């Protein structure tokens, strides 16, 4: 009996120390990584910030490895240990102090693991937000101004007649010459093409306050989420009106996903 209690105590201690070590390693890597992520993001000339993405992926991989390791140890050293001990104890109807101790042990180990998972969520979010927010609004306004400045400066490649680009296009588009009807292909600048890529993020930036209001509501208020989502998609459609039809289907899907999810606490 005392042997069993001793084994339970030792296993619990080892599990706690193991998770402490993983957490301390996680803290060390993530806090040291934050300035590095910021530096890579700022120096990355790629419009898609792929060097920053690669670095982030590597670091997330490290954290996920820690998560897998903890899950593996939990299965092997905690749950299998509990199964082993349970089979050695008298069956149902013969509850002893060992049963109580085993139950307390199980709950303590699971709670400790939950804390570890919370730390993972915290450090993941620290890494994801380390680069800070890009000023997408300024970049968008810059593209609008650039477009206004060039929209009348094109001529038909066939007859040299002056052409006006009717809208701010984000992808290559046929524009018909009003004089000779030739289909010219207008290819937007790289900056304008990036607006399409950044449109959702910009809409999310514009409506971040609504998402925050929803996230701060307790219990989570679905109506607030719906308000946020609608506003976000309205902003998105204002930026890229040509995608409104497709976006509406996406909006309906996200809304359904939210209503069907169970995490409203």
């Amino acid at each position, binding site marked *: 009996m005392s042997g069993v209690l001793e084994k339970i105590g030792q296993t619990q201690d080892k599990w706690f120390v193991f998770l402490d070590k993983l957490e301390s390693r996680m803290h060390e890597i993530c806090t*040291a990584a934050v300035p590095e992520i910021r530096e890579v993001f700022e*120096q990355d000339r790629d419009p898609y910030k792929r060097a920053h993405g690669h670095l982030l992926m590597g670091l997330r991989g490290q954290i996920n490895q820690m998560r897998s390791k903890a899950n593996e140890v939990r299965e092997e050293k905690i749950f299998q240990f509990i199964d082993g001990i349970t089979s050695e104890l008298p069956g149902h109807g013969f509850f002893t102090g060992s049963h109580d101790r085993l139950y307390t042990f199980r709950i303590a180990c699971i709670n400790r693991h939950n804390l570890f998972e919370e730390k993972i969520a915290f450090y993941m979010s620290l890494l994801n937000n380390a680069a800070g927010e890009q000023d997408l609004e300024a970049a968008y306004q810059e593209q609008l101004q650039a477009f206004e400045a060039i929209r009348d400066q*094109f001529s038909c490649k066939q007859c040299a007649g002056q052409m006006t680009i009717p809208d701010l296009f984000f992808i290559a588009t046929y524009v018909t010459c009003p004089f000779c*009807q030739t*289909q010219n292909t207008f290819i937007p*600048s790289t900056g304008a093409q990036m607006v399409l890529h950044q449109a959702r993020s910009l809409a999310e930036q514009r409506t971040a306050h609504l998402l925050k209001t929803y996230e701060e509501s307790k219990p989570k208020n679905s109506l607030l989420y719906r308000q946020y989502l609608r506003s976000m998609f309205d902003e998105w459609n204002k930026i890229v009106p040509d995608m409104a039809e497709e976006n509406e289907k996406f909006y309906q899907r996200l809304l359904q996903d939210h209503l069907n999810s169970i995490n409203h606490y």
Partner: protein
Amino acid sequence: MNEKDKTLSYLERLKQQAVNQENYGGEIKAEEAKMEVRDCPECGAGRAFHQGLTVCAYCGFKFMDIRLTDGLYIRKQNNS
């Protein structure tokens, strides 16, 4: 090497790998907006939209063999 140095050296390696990794499709060069046109190689006419985009409106040369489907700016009605 102590733990702190190990972490810094690991991060430095990770950073170098991330920065030096070649991007799919190569480096993206910032380009200005431009206008292009595709003339008919058979008769030299501009690609006019009289009866669709896939065939030259003047001599019948096939600009493309595919059937167009609905997209953002191109519709299936644009087939010749």
